[in-house]
């Protein structure tokens, strides 16, 4: 995903007050104390919302108590291609508690939204629900039944008889090759690109490697299934949602319904994980709204786990051909990365595996290409590190194979090909400590004790394998706004229309305020997940921290300035009549520079003296010129140990050590958890995750958490997550220096596991997941 500037989110009201790179050092001159001074910024800080969560008080979308709420149940297509011939609801209509049924023949007019990421109108799928009688994939919404209780709605839905005209669906990529095309771009990034002469240089290369790697279709499977609860008050709609993008939900739902954006209010204070499937806006958010308008009551629509497999996107399967050429000393002379993915018949989302390859290593001759086929499966969507994650699986596996051909240690091979600049964009990096990551993780892991010979390392009867891979993810940033208030009792609040998917935004917001204003974290309240708050970007692309925290610091500065002005203007204040720049702040007090803090006043005293309730500061910042000058990218290294019992075809990951350079680590506690979660999800990708479609009819065979395996505790070994923790000097002009951490942690994991499996067994598995059936002959 490319960085964008301006999301059309009321940007007129929020003047651009950053000037980019030149301002990078400005933060030193403002009134706020230096960051990472005495506050909690950069220090391990427990989750601000932790108590609410462990005591069950955190309200997720479906938890909000609403009077007179009724329940909706969605009916999905059981065929994957064809038309709805007839919907017979006569029995359902007589069922107890039945209130309404909606379907393509019986639904209000809906509109396709403008489908623009920049203006936050991005549906997951551009075809509007109930648009017509066409069926494009199994699980497509066919009808919605509303009844008084959930049980009644379920029962009534089971009585609806749907007849289809069945067409043969195409599920398998091989069978869809007649639809293959070359998609042009992915959120502004070109999907076909070349520098130098990848073919000629490959032909001339001293050492060559070429292979095809494939990854299966995968689903996000967050713990909390999506839910939407709609309540109309006259022409105003409140939607309780579980969304990674409250502003996007507001704009997209409003456009789909054909109502003004101001009439739609999105509330999403807690999210039980998203990983991308709650990023763009999916039909359930519109369904609850139209159902509620129809029955004149609030409507709750919870998706079932099964519905989560067709109603909010997935990661496409990928088939990636990687071709590497190198000189005998290991220097890469040619890279070509050719990716084939799937998209749906009704929209395009491309798993952009090759774009990372353009810049990850230094190489004069690089080519990437992407191709897509259309199959009768719902539209794919971003899933944790879309593109980077399967892309690094292929590229980092290929590099391991090349390292063996070259007889060069895989870490050394990567260091020899280190990209000192971004050779694709021809920009210097804003900051890059990848070599430190290799060194830190390798040392902790004990890599120097590795015998590179496959099958050479044992633990009793078990084969031991050590593998590694590079991790990477862009340092994105989008416009973000926030407000901070210092209240009459000396406490503070901070608000922004951002989201906390569980990653820890509530906490980092508070940390910035605590640090800037010298107020203890316990006395600061953060509020987010509400579209009425100052706009912030989607919590996707790992951009929340970089987009929102600088705006918060800016807002703190403005609030403090107002407080200082209040003190100066107050005849009873010891600071009366001073100039603004003569006043400083520390530990919740303002006072004349050079004097003792006790000579001044607490924030509460300043406000009380003027009988004021609060002062408020606002921050709105967006990326600027620095994006033209520098390439912003995070890097890391994943080191994995596997132990394989060849007698029973069992592979277990037994140890992972990872190091990441993500700029400043704002909260080491929650950052470490992001590390754990990405690595665990990567283990799942490597060893078990795989959504299976029956290629005869396009239905999903394993759409539940018993049959779709993700790691359980017993699959998770000792994990060690290290951070370089050096601030990015250019990513913002407020000295935050953080590049975000949600996605990089999964990249490279699957490759490191597969490389370790090779080291253990001498067998290269190029098709994920590495299940027991692929280990029978090791």
């Amino acid at each position, binding site marked *: 995903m490319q960085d964008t500037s301006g999301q059309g989110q009321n940007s007129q009201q929020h003047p651009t007050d950053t000037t980019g790179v030149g301002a990078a050092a400005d933060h030193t001159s403002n009134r706020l104390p230096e960051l990472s001074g005495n506050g909690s910024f950069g220090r391990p800080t427990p989750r601000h919302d932790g108590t609410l969560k462990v005591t069950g008080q955190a309200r997720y979308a479906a938890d909000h108590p609403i009077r007179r709420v009724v329940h909706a149940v969605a009916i999905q297509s*059981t065929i994957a291609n064809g038309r709805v011939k007839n919907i017979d609801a006569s029995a359902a209509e007589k069922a107890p508690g039945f209130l309404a049924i909606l379907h393509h023949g019986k639904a209000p007019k809906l509109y396709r939204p403008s489908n623009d990421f920049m203006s936050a109108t991005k549906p997951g799928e551009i075809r509007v629900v109930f648009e017509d009688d066409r069926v494009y994939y199994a699980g497509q919404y066919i009808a919605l039944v509303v009844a008084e209780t959930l*049980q009644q709605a*379920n*029962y009534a839905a*089971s009585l609806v008889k749907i007849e289809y005209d069945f067409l043969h669906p195409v599920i398998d990529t091989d069978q869809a090759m007649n639809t293959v095309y070359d998609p042009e771009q992915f959120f502004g990034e070109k999907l076909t690109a070349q520098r130098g002469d990848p073919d000629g240089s490959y032909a001339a290369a001293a050492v060559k490697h070429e292979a095809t790697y494939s990854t299966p279709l995968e689903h996000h499977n967050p713990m909390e299934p999506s839910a939407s609860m709609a309540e109309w008050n006259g022409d105003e709609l409140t939607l309780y949602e579980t969304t990674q993008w409250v502003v996007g939900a507001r704009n997209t739902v409003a456009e789909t319904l054909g109502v003004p954006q101001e009439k739609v209010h999105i509330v999403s204070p807690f999210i039980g994980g998203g990983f991308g499937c709650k990023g763009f806006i999916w039909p359930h958010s519109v369904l609850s709204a139209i159902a509620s308008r129809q029955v004149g009551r609030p409507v709750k629509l919870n998706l079932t786990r099964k519905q989560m497999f067709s109603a909010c996107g997935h990661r496409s399967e990928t088939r990636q051909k990687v071709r590497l050429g190198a000189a005998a000393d290991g220097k890469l002379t040619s890279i070509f990365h050719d990716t084939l993915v799937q998209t749906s018949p009704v929209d395009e989302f491309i798993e952009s595996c090759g774009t990372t390859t353009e810049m990850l290593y230094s190489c004069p001759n690089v080519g990437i290409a992407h191709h897509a086929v259309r199959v009768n499966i719902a539209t794919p969507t971003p899933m944790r590190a879309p593109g980077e994650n399967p892309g690094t699986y292929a590229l980092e596996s290929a590099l391991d194979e090349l390292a063996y051909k070259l007889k060069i240690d895989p870490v050394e091979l990567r260091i020899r090909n280190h990209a000192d600049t971004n050779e694709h964009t021809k920009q210097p990096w804003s900051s890059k400590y990848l070599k430190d990551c290799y060194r830190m993780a390798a040392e902790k892991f004990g890599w120097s004790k590795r015998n590179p010979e496959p099958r050479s390392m044992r633990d009793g009867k078990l084969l031991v394998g050590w593998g590694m891979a590079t991790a990477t993810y862009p340092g994105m940033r989008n416009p973000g706004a926030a407000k901070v208030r210092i209240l009459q009792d000396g406490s503070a609040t901070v608000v922004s229309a951002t989201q906390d998917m569980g990653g820890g935004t509530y906490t980092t917001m508070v940390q910035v305020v605590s640090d800037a204003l010298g107020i203890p974290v316990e006395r600061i309240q953060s509020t987010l997940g509400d579209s009425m708050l100052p706009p912030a970007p989607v919590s996707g692309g790992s951009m929340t921290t970089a987009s929102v925290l600088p705006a918060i610091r800016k807002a703190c500065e403005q609030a403090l300035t107002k407080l200082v002005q209040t003190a100066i203007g107050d005849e009873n204040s010891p600071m009366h009549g001073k100039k603004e720049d003569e006043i400083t702040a520390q530990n919740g007090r303002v006072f004349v520079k050079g004097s003792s803090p006790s000579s001044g006043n607490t924030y509460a005293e300043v406000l009380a003296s003027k009988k004021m309730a609060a002062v408020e500061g606002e921050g709105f910042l967006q990326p600027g010129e620095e994006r033209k000058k520098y390439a912003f990218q995070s890097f890391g290294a994943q080191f994995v140990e596997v132990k394989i019992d060849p*007698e*029973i*075809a*069992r592979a*277990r990951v037994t140890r992972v050590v990872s190091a990441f350079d993500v700029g400043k680590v704002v909260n080491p506690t929650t950052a470490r958890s992001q590390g754990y979660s990405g690595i665990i999800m990567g283990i799942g990708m490597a*060893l*078990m995750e795989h959504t*299976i479609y*029956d290629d*005869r009819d396009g*239905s999903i*065979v*394993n759409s539940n958490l*018993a*049959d779709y*395996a993700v*790691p*359980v*505790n*017993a*699959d998770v070994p000792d994990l060690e997550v290290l951070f370089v923790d050096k601030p990015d000097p250019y990513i913002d002009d407020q000295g935050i220096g953080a590049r975000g951490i949600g996605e990089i942690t999964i990249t490279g994991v699957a490759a490191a596991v597969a490389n370790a499996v090779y080291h253990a067994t001498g067998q290269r598995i190029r098709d994920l997941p590495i*299940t*027991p*059936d692929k280990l*029978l002959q090791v």
Partner: protein
Amino acid sequence: MQPFSFTQARSEDEAMAQLRQNSRFIAGGTTLVDLMKLDVETPAHLVDINALSLNKIETLADGSLRIGAMVRNSDLAHDAAVIKNFPVLSQALLAGASAQLRNMATTGGNLLQRTRCYYFRDPAYAACNKRRPGSGCAALEGFNRIHAVLGGSEHCVATHPSDMAVAMVALDAVVHIRGPKGERQVKIEDFHKLPGTTPQIETVVEPGELITYVTLPKSAFSTRSAYVKLRDRASYEFALASAAVALDLNGKTIRSARLALGGVATKPWRSHEAEQALTGGQASDQAFRAAAEAAMKSARPLRYNGFKIELAKMALVRALNEAAQL
């Protein structure tokens, strides 16, 4: 889920008396409620048997162990007598499901749990002889990675998913059943039925019959027993292949053996062929391999499950090695 009525029974007699047309007993509910939510099971009436006093594990005078049908899987797995005298059973139970499920799941319910065949569990599929007799079998030509390589017919190739039952097969367990016509006892090996032309009939239990107990006879082989389960992840997953073995050894000589397989067959699978291959011979890796070959000789792979044949052999050899070393 379809509407149903519900009554609670306090005794076996009450339980039998409360039965009506299209009734089911509900024990832990971990199979039944799941399938009711999927509209696969659509009973009109449920009789709750949780208050029945069938919740004890007792060692009888003849040394056998009597397990009440309502004994929870976790209680059975952690019972001292089971751990000591029938370790394969404890291991099999603990390899099954999750702690939460085992706390609810019962001995009787576990024996009667139903297949995990994807097509059975999804009523959107018209073809499933087990769910709708005579409708065909979607799995035969479908995605059949988890299906059976042993005991299948052209009408059904669904596996029986229980771990516990596999261990019980290796222990010569006996199931006690009470019905309108009185009580009877069935050897566990005869308790589950092959699909044949009637895959909807899975056990000898007739409508209206109640499982009351399972007894495990005292035997020379039960203590030297082990369970090995192979699957896609470390825990909380059904078996791709599993093996329960019990050995009676005299030095290295195998006096008698019990070998049962799970995850690969349409019922908890006892392999007489493999037992015969071992009986009277020496315990050795080579002998174990030969027994595994014998066990899988009649296996027939489908499109996606051929790997199970090798995996089952691996499980058997490993389990035999573990048992022999005890």
